[in-house]
């Protein structure tokens, strides 16, 4: 069993020798600010998860030296990108060293011939695309945290993109990357070899092994990304429906349209509309007959988008939808690129407003199962809201989940407001149980417990072995082989079991 000790002064001195004094932060503010992510957090136990120190490397070689030192000294290392994750990937459960990669934000090469851009992992997609616009190209990875998340974190979570139906998701858009292994070696991974090669049959597909590693298998230090032509035209259309069932059927018809320019289809349920009317100051109109909404968006050349838009309008109306108008359609769609500006308040069952944090529980669910899963998730949330008095159901979305073929399964999310100031040792287990029941429903309906957030923490993580089956044994063997001393983000994904550990992460 590996035990961790507080970081000694001699280790701090060695880190300063590797990075320089200004890149080793030991102050309280620097450490507390890198303790948590937007996912609900046991704030009553905040102090237990503060890292011992923070380092800000600039090069892969510096990262490698930091990891080698940590491996020799058996100190936990947790990589941190934008800190926008909706699970706990970047949270230092066992304290140790947080490696903040924000200074590794260079654009190293723009290759307009082979259509790639090579960057440091600390660059943000919005900032990257501001530069790429000069060349009339873009990197179309589009999470709800688009203005604030970083490329390294997108690889760490194997992210999902709002317009993945047209352009693919993070795993499709990252061609290859460089990663520092838990023992300090620097390697390149892709489909096979070749930094700019999209398809290879050489060896194992190592890019996919490390995609979604949540910091448990190393630290990404460089990535080569896909470039696509900057869209000439965007078209967004929102339709409303008198019932969830009508909207669900229309979602299926729109998603199966076969239009190559279709970025995605989004289904808002009745709970979501009630929340938007109540607390989000959204563009959704008020009449009671508006019970569910479906959003679509197209991107591409003018020659593609104009005829496709006519077809989307026809399918939307023929499948029972009523167009919501240009202002709602274009205005709300633009806000979808930046959903981290949600109101941070919710309601008690009395209607009283209280400060709440946003929690988004996600899963991958097949289209046929969406109505049943929706009913069960709301029932679970209602039961725990009544029991704890600190939860508020903010409704559900279902987004097309397939890359290039946006049908079949959906990123399914339930947003839950949580009054974190009221969290305690008494009600935290109820919250974890709520999460676990939601995840179990996804498995019961043949789904996956997460489409893009990851499932690293208690409430989700204990179901990873159930979902993965024999694959979890392979995960543990890989983890133990690559990280013999369990220094890389220990405590995540139940991978401590690979070392004979079986402790609960949060009490």
């Amino acid at each position, binding site marked *: 069993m590996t035990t961790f000790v507080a970081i000694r002064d001699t280790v701090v001195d060695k880190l300063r020798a590797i990075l320089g004094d200004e890149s080793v932060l030991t102050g309280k503010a620097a450490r507390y600010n890198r303790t948590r992510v937007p996912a609900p957090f046991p704030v009553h136990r905040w102090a237990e998860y503060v890292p011992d120190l923070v380092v800000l490397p600039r090069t892969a070689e510096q990262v490698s030296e930091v990891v080698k030192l940590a491996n020799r000294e058996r100190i936990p290392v947790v990589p941190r990108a934008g800190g926008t994750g909706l699970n706990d990937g970047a949270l230092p459960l066992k304290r140790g060293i947080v490696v903040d990669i924000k200074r590794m934000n260079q654009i190293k090469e723009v290759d307009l011939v082979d259509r790639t851009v090579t960057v440091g992992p600390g660059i943000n997609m*919005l900032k990257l*695309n*501001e530069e790429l616009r000069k060349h009339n190209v873009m990197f179309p990875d589009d999470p709800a945290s688009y203005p604030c998340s970083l490329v390294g974190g997108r690889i760490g979570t194997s992210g999902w993109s709002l317009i993945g139906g047209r352009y693919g998701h993070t795993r499709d858009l990252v061609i290859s990357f460089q990663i520092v292994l838990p023992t300090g070696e620097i390697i390149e991974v892709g489909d096979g070899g070749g930094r700019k090669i999209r398809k290879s049959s050489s060896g194992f597909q190592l890019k996919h092994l490390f995609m979604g590693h949540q910091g448990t298998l190393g630290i990404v230090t460089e990535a080569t990304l896909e470039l696509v032509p*900057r*869209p*000439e*035209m*965007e*078209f967004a*259309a929102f339709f*409303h429906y008198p019932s969830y069932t009508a909207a669900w059927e229309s979602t299926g018809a729109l998603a199966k349209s076969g239009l190559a320019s279709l970025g995605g289809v989004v289904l808002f349920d009745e709970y979501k509309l009630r929340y938007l*009317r*109540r*607390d989000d*100051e959204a563009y959704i*109109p*008020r*009449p009671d007959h*508006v019970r569910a909404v479906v959003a679509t968006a197209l*991107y591409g050349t*003018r020659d593609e*988008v*104009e005829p496709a*838009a*006519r077809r989307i*309008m026809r399918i939307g109306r023929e499948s029972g939808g*009523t*167009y*919501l*108008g*240009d202002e709602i*359609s*274009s*205005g709300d769609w*633009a*806000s979808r*690129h*930046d959903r981290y500006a949600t109101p941070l*308040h919710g*309601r008690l069952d009395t*209607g*009283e*407003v*209280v*400060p709440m944090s946003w929690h988004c529980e996600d899963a991958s669910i097949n289209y046929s199962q969406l109505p049943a899963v929706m009913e069960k998730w709301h029932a679970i949330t209602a039961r725990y809201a009544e029991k704890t008095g600190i939860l508020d159901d903010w409704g559900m979305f279902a987004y097309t989940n397939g890359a290039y073929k946006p049908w079949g399964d959906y990123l399914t999310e339930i947003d839950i407001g949580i009054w974190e100031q009221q969290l305690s040792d008494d009600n935290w287990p109820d919250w974890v149980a709520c999460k676990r029941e939601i995840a179990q429903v996804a498995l019961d309906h043949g789904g996956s417990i997460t489409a893009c957030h990851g499932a690293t923490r208690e409430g989700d993580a204990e179901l990873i072995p159930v979902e993965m089956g024999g694959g979890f044994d392979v995960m543990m063997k890989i983890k133990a082989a690559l990280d013999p001393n369990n220094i890389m983000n220990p405590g995540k994904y139940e991978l401590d079991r690979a070392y004979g550990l079986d402790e609960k992460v949060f009490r």
Partner: protein
Amino acid sequence: MIGFRLSAQKPPEARRITDDVIQRFEHIYEVDPAKMTIIEQQDMPAWDTMRIVDSRWEHLAWMHDHWADTILTAEDLGEGGPHPDG
């Protein structure tokens, strides 16, 4: 800015939209202050509300421009149809 104007400071009287929501300005919905006793609603001058709304529209326009050269609407296609609130 040319001196003090009461209309720029004092928001209009609210009208009720639902049990939980009121409205003082067109298209701007507010939580009913009666439901805000644990956390009290902040008093805001009218000009500050409008500044925030205008900033929001600027942000959305910026985001559109960030993603594509041109925004096509259903109205451009001759398919806008009636607004559902109408």
